């Protein structure tokens, strides 16, 4: 990961960040437990989790505001746990933006440069460039409170990147923006990250945001990393029920393995007696209890998959139909299970109503067998 040192004057690149067995305990309460994570130079990694999962505490330890109880943090391969925040040279965008209210926009953005004793003329030039980059040119003399939330967010971003940090930390930066603006800013942040070639560690509880922006995502729950992987990997192959449930929506079906074929495909019997097949990457033996997760959009309704002979096919009764705008959501009761099915097929809506009998089909390949059967 650490290539040859860049030549003098060459554009600087993002720095790698490595967390090793990072711990934070408040008395008996462990906020962060044994977090190990390696972020490559220039990578965009998101810490995703619900509130109280330890993601913000982890970020605050990287920034240096929360002392670690154990473990080590390496930035550019240098241990920094004992380095004060002002010497870590990290850019950071705070959740509440933390723009200094007694300074103008230009003074806010100039602050990190003034602290680094840059010459006055260069500061002015850099501030203008940073404002250009976040598309707020000409806003130098405004006060932060005269700006909208979205504009404040841009100023906070400009202040965090103006000194060209090699690592940028972001703590739920888009949390207080409305949906449209949020999506727009997601694209802007990605653009700036690529333009400046920074390593970004991003904290959010919004799974869509994480899936859209990240190279890799670390899903956190009760202080631990549950799974680290790319967006598609997390979505298609969640390791446990928490990840399967937190990222996207999942139907959980548990049962006992009755048979394992040579290619790893297994037959599973649900407690109702219904049997289905799942193609798992997990080593199982007949007699074991497994939990599987199936995405609502991977289930199809009616006879649509009759062509696929290997498909699972159960019959049930429609208990609810929900119109989502671009899609329809069905709830289908099968024995004591209720499966959620998402379909783009609007015509189906005209042909079906609550109470109808209907077939539910899905492919064994789309059935994720979870490593551990912890409750979602």
């Amino acid at each position: 990961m650490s290539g040859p040192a860049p030549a003098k004057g060459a554009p600087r690149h993002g720095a790698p960040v490595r967390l090793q067995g990072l711990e934070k305990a408040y008395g008996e309460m462990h906020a962060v437990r044994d977090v190990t994570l390696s972020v490559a130079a220039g990578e965009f990694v998101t810490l995703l989790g619900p509130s109280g999962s330890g993601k913000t505490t982890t970020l605050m330890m990287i920034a240096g505001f929360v002392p670690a109880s154990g473990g080590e943090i390496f930035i550019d391969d240098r241990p920094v746990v004992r380095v004060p925040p002002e010497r870590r040279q990290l850019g950071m965008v705070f959740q509440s933006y933390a723009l200094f209210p007694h300074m103008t926009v230009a003074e806010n953005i100039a602050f990190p440069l003034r602290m680094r004793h840059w010459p006055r003329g260069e500061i002015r030039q850099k501030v203008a460039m940073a404002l250009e980059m976040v598309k707020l040119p000409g806003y130098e003399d405004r006060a932060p409170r005269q700006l909208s939330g979205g504009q404040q967010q841009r100023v906070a971003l400009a202040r965090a990147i103006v000194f060209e940090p090699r690592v940028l930390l972001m703590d739920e930066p888009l949390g207080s923006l409305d949906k449209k603006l949020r999506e727009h800013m997601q694209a802007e942040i990605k653009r700036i990250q690529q333009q400046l070639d920074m390593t970004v560690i991003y904290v959010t509880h919004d799974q869509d945001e994480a899936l859209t922006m990240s190279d890799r995502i670390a899903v956190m729950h009760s202080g631990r990393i549950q799974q680290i992987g790319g967006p598609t990997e997390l979505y298609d192959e969640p390791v446990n029920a928490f990840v399967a449930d937190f990222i996207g929506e999942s139907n959980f079906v548990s049962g006992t393995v009755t048979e394992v074929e040579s290619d790893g495909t297994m037959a599973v019997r649900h407690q109702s007696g219904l049997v289905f097949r799942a193609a798992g990457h997990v080593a199982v033996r007949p007699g074991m209890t497994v939990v599987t997760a199936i995405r609502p959009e991977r289930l199809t309704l009616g006879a649509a998959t009759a062509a696929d002979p290997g498909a699972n096919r159960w019959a049930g009764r429609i208990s609810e139909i929900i119109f989502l705008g671009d899609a329809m959501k069905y709830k289908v009761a099968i024995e004591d299970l209720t499966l959620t099915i998402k379909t783009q097929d609007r015509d189906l809506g005209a042909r079906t109503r609550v109470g109808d009998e209907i077939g539910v089909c899905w492919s064994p390949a789309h059935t994720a067998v979870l490593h551990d059967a912890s409750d979602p």
Partner: protein
Amino acid sequence: MQQSEPIPAASPAADDATRRPPVSRARGRPSLTICLLLPALLFLAIFFAYPMVDIVIRSFAGPAGVSLANYGHVIEHPVYLRVFQITFEIALTVTIVALLLGYPLAYVLASAGRLAAGAIMGCVLLSLFTNILVRTYAWMIILAPEGVINQLLHYAGLGGADLLYNRYGVLIGMTYALLPYMVLTLYSVMRGIDRKFLQAARNLSASDWKAFWHVFLPLSLPGVVGGSLLVFILSVGYFITPRLLGGARDQMIAMVIEQQVELGANWGFAAALAIILLLLTTVGFLLYDRFVGLKSLFESKV
């Protein structure tokens, strides 16, 4: 209601205030606001406005109708101007010393943990809860020629210090009595400063001291302005402490006014002194506003 002009984003409160009273309903019936204010307004009218007007009238009363004799008396006798000068000197010194002592105390109070903050706050409030006379007499014992301080100085081989019945006594006693007002005002402002600002400053490469100087101090200025004003106003009219701890040369204006009323029953002259004090204080505020600005006291920047 039609809005003819865009409202500046900076003053949502002012906008609310202008929009709230519904014009149509207020007609014929006293509005709720007036009714709620009425008791306080009545109280102020009887116990503040009326005596105030009475003082003004008395100050202009002469043997034959309206006269400027009382004011003339003040100007003709430099001793009174000297008293005003002493009063403002003492008030200013007390304010500055209280600020210098109170600011670090309030800072520690605002950033300490709950237990430590509680203990400090307890000490600050305890001194407020104790009767001012008791506290002033306590200072008389401490500052006396054979008091604790002089004994300590003696043991340390530094000789003695004359601390009672002079300017030092007045300054020590008044600063002590007024310090809690300074600390509490500063504390309330400092508590409202989001620690995120300091974190942001540190993150942007400011050391502890620079973060304090560039971020915390400017944000705490409303507290500095408010606390200084409060202590100065209280100091200017202070009576008991200078009376008990001061000497003949440290007479403050409140003491002179008291003497005029108690000893001479000279109501007109006492009233004139009070009016002059009021005018001088007002001029002082205007100057203060001109050079320091009271704006920050009333507007929240955060």
